[in-house]
């Protein structure tokens, strides 16, 4: 029998250690957070290795740790499709985005668009995409946090959501990017370490041979667990999800913002290399953890605790390492949520204060002090909003919201960003239209999809057949940008591209 759901002493001890340590980091970081530059970019002092870990920390959310391990434990091979899909976006970030972004912008990805195009209108459009992604991502994380903490520690949902909101507020408000980065680094090390240890404990039961583990899964649950099964029914839907996962990574505001925390483009490049290595390693571990939970814990037990399978990893930890190890993994999962929510909030604050307030409302003529004050006010607003959203969406199925966030990131942010970096004829109107149509079409098609119509609203059928709209909305967004730009060419926008070419490669000297 599992002790999951009751108060777990080790979990609470580990969690308190993490909170004390991370608040200690925040106090230290707050002394280095006196300017807007330090608040948003940690003074650009983060090294490649540190940023690689922080990127991995921002990306490996509790959804991917608990969710994918759970999915593999209940669906076998099909769950692995997510592990792979979540990794393949990273090379795209590396090849197309990281270095130009670092050289052309200061705090947000909208800086890149604003450098090339008419700044005010383009920042407004980019903020719509950025805030939509951040909001849906935040809802998924906050609801996940509430449910998870209730299951792991037996705490009340609303209480758990408030703890996450308040602690994360402390990190971002006082420690800015410096604290957020170090919290990510600590969390990434804990998560990678905990997952590795768990995988080693699982493999120890199979002579350290993963194939023996997979063979055992096959023996217990039949041949189908190792091959594609019922999750992938529609080829178009599989492609569509794949596109959104791959290109969405390169449009996530909180990930893109990390490239401003390093010294130069070269460091940004190396940091993506580290991040890709860490994240790939982590997702390879999910192969072992997922099948390990399937074999050692058993599907019935996993699904009895949580129908979605989300508790597979903690249950596995309890069986192979006892209650203390369960406590450790539970604390790591909690820390993971805190860190991801902090990263999201900081990037949302940057959009609200840097993009909208400083550059749109105040026309970029803003004193240092005001920038910091506005950034902190935005942080408080976002923290309050995330607590309210977390409580509002209590008990609702929000699993699709991470997919929705990726779909918007891929359809609204990615096309305009990549075209502004590589295509001289992109115009302000083209980029605006692309971002707005990308956001609106994604929201509309998700609303009409089986995800909302059948799963959430319980209608008999859905107007739009695909669960993920990426295969329609990503090309639509590209075509819109290209058509609008070609139909009404703007020589000034094209000239600006040529002027920026040097900065794109050399940065600001």
């Amino acid at each position, binding site marked *: 029998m599992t002790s999951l759901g009751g108060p777990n002493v080790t979990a609470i001890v580990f969690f308190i250690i993490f909170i004390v340590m991370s608040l200690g980091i925040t106090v230290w970081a707050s002394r280095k957070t006196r300017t807007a530059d330090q608040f948003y970019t940690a003074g650009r002092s983060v090294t490649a290795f540190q940023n690689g870990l922080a990127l991995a920390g921002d990306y490996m959310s509790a959804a991917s740790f608990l969710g994918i391990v759970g999915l593999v434990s209940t669906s076998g*091979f099909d769950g*692995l*499709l997510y*592990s*792979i*899909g979540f*990794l*393949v976006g*990273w*090379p*795209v970030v*590396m*090849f*197309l985005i990281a*270095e130009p972004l670092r050289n052309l912008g200061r705090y947000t990805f909208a800086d890149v668009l604003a450098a090339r195009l008419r700044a005010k209108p383009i920042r407004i459009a980019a903020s719509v995409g950025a805030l939509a992604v951040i909001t849906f991502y935040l809802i998924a994380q906050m609801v996940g946090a509430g449910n998870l903490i209730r299951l792991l520690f037996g705490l009340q949902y609303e209480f758990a959501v408030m703890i996450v909101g308040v602690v994360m507020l402390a990190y971002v408000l006082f420690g800015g990017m410096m604290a957020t980065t170090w919290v990510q680094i600590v969390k990434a090390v804990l998560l990678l370490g905990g997952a590795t240890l768990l995988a080693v404990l699982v493999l120890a039961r199979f002579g350290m041979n*993963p*194939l*023996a*583990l*997979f*063979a*055992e899964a*096959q023996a217990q649950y039949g*041949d*189908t667990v*190792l*091959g*594609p*099964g019922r999750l*992938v029914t*529609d*080829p178009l839907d*599989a*492609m569509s999800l*794949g596109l959104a996962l*791959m290109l969405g990574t390169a449009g996530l505001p909180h990930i893109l913002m990390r490239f401003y925390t390093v010294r130069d483009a*070269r460091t940004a*490049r*190396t940091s*993506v*290399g580290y991040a*890709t*290595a860490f994240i*790939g390693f982590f*997702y*390879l571990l999910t*192969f072992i953890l997922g099948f390990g939970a399937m074999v050692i814990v058993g599907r019935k037990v996993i699904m009895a605790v949580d129908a979605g399978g989300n508790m597979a990893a903690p249950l596995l930890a309890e069986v192979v390492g006892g209650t203390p190890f369960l406590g450790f993994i539970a604390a790591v999962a909690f820390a993971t949520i805190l860190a991801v929510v902090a990263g999201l909030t900081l990037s949302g604050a940057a959009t609200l204060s840097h993009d909208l307030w400083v550059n749109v409302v105040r026309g970029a003529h803003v004193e240092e002090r005001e920038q910091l004050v506005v950034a902190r006010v935005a942080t408080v607003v976002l923290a309050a909003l995330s607590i309210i959203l977390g409580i509002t969406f209590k008990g609702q199925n929000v699993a699709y919201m991470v997919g929705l966030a990726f779909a918007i990131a891929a359809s609204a942010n990615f096309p305009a960003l990549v075209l502004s970096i*590589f295509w001289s004829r992109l115009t302000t109107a083209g980029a605006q239209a692309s971002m707005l149509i990308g956001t609106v079409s994604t929201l509309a098609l998700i609303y009409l999809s089986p995800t909302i119509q059948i799963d959430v609203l319980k209608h008999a059928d859905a107007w739009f057949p695909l669960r993920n709209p990426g295969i329609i909305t990503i090309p639509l967004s590209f075509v819109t940008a290209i058509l609008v730009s070609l139909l009404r060419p703007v020589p000034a926008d094209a000239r600006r591209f040529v002027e920026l*070419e*040097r900065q*794109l*490669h*050399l940065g600001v*000297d």
Partner: protein
Amino acid sequence: MPTHSTLEAVSAARWRIAASLTVAMMVAYFGFVLLVAFNKPLLGTPVVPGLSLGMLLGALVIVVAWVLTWIYISWANAHYDASVDGLR
């Protein structure tokens, strides 16, 4: 202006590499996804006991992502950085 033509050459070279590596990643990944979608029985075939072709190819996609990333970093460190420094 000589600097300008060099800048164009640097841009073109970087675009070529970035585009080819992106296409390579997409081919590997979407090739895998299409196989999953259209030929499920094939991917369920065991390669050795305990390992299906699908799992092997899936793990290989992750390895391909690593290798392409590594190719880009070594190209950029060896060639791109030098030519960018030449522009200064």
